[in-house]
């Protein structure tokens, strides 16, 4: 009972839990599309590409305006996305190499900026790991509110454009032939992915946020063969791992929240891959064994 009470009345735990759950929902939904479009790594690249933007925003405004850090992250993530698209269009580099290149270049630049920040006085107070791994325990109400509003906007767009997202993800050539602007829809999906990353920035940080984007979708796919159900389950898994991670890290030891959330999520992915109703490894093995036995009994 006491945890439940703390969840409602304890300022810190409430903020952390709400922030992590909001992240779980939005990253579960947007990550589902990324997984289905085989763009799991895009989230990772965009998250790393967000780091220099966070640093620049910090240098310019300091810690007092968390929204500025979010805007900086989004802007530099978007520049990273444009750079990836230009590389793919103008060179013969394949998408894996293009993502890897942009990810490392931007992240390297971000780390250089981090060093600059560390040498300044403000940086010593901020702590660099906050930028890399998030600092959910330090979430304030204003941040949680911003995260919730951003997520609500992103989810509203998903609802409004659901059929466009679906047909573009399944069969983009056909989508183009029925006059759906495939490139625009792709850009909107990438932009929403970026929103999910920005939401995750304070909670799990740029390094681990990609787990939140890939994990829930990959796990949810094991339980269902319907896109809508998959997205709901992904949101649920994201929320549950966010909540569990928040409780574990705040109430128990002093383990940072982000890594705990990712570990909880990873456990859920593992369970899903093994026992998922639609395509879990264990059920598939049992089914084929039963078939085998039935055949040999004949």
């Amino acid at each position, binding site marked *: 009972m006491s945890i439940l009470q703390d969840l409602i009345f304890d300022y810190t735990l409430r903020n952390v839990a709400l922030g992590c759950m909001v992240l779980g929902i939005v990253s579960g939904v947007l990550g589902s599309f990324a997984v*289905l479009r*085989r763009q799991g790594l895009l989230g990772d690249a965009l998250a790393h590409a967000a780091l220099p933007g966070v640093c620049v925003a910090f240098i310019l405004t300091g810690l007092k305006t968390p929204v500025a850090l979010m805007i900086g992250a989004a802007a530099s993530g978007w520049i990273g996305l444009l750079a990836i698209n230009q590389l793919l269009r103008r060179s013969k580099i394949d998408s894996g190499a293009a993502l890897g290149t942009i990810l490392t270049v931007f992240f390297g630049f971000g780390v250089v900026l981090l060093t600059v920040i560390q040498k300044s006085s403000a940086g010593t107070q901020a702590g660099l790991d906050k930028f890399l791994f998030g600092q959910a325990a330090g979430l304030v109400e204003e941040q949680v509110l911003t995260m919730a509003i951003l997520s609500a906007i992103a989810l509203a767009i998903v609802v*409004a*454009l*659901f*059929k*466009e997202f*679906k*047909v573009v*993800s*399944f*069969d983009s*050539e*056909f*989508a*183009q*032939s*029925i*006059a*759906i602007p495939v490139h625009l829809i792709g850009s909107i999906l990438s932009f929403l992915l970026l929103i999910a990353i920005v939401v995750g920035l304070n909670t799990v940080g740029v390094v681990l946020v990609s787990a939140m984007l890939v994990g829930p979708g990959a796990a949810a*796919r094991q339980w*269902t*063969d*319907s*896109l809508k*159900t*998959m997205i709901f389950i992904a949101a649920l898994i994201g929320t549950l791992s966010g909540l569990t991670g928040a409780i574990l890290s705040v109430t128990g030891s002093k383990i940072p929240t982000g890594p705990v959330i990712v570990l909880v999520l990873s456990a859920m992915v593992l369970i899903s891959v093994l026992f998922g109703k639609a395509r879990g490894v264990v059920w598939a093995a049992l089914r084929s064994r039963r078939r085998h036995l039935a055949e040999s009994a004949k």
Partner: protein
Amino acid sequence: MNAVEVRDLTVAYHESPVLWDVDLDIPQASLFAIIGPNGAGKSTLIKSALDLVPRSAGTVRIFGSSYRTVRKRVGYVPQRGSVDWDFPTDALDVVLMGTYGRLGWFRKPGRGERDAAMRCLETVGMADFATRQISQLSGGQQQRVFLARALAQDAELYFMDEPLAGVDATTERAVIEVLRELRSKGKTVVAVHHDLESAPTYFDHVALLNVKIIASGPIADVFTNENLQQTYGGRIAVLA
């Protein structure tokens, strides 16, 4: 008026031409086959008509207008292998996508669309598989789902990329029956086809393509040994 008129069409990827100076007239209410060896540019011809690949030169007129303005009257069946059949969706849902074009932005398919999609599944003999996850369908059944989706577009002209490639006999019969029915309703079907033997029984018009058009017109006039040898570069046994 012809359903499709292609003039001086050239398409090139990385500077080597895939289609070279193609001229083609496709009459309305015809079943029109595009035939040629691998790498002849058959799929590219269809895709460039649909504005899916950029043209280096030339024009394509559909019903006398540009594709953009008559888009809603044109249906498309892509190659079966072009999508991920592991996508979490069922047969009916894929067919429903055929109605998205006329629904427009923000509107969701409703009862009317579902009924229409169901009728299209019936037409191709797939009504019993409406709620089947698409990865659990055989190749031929998947092809029929794609055909049903095109029917749901309710178009007047259909482009089909290899609708009979690697399908079972049941599917082949079902597809051909649907194509003939479309023709009897005055609709036009342009299909990439790979089987020389069945082409004259299934189609009434043909274009022989190998980067350039070798010959095109009514199949009885065009399907000569000389033309076929020229198309395939003398690499096929002479037809009986």
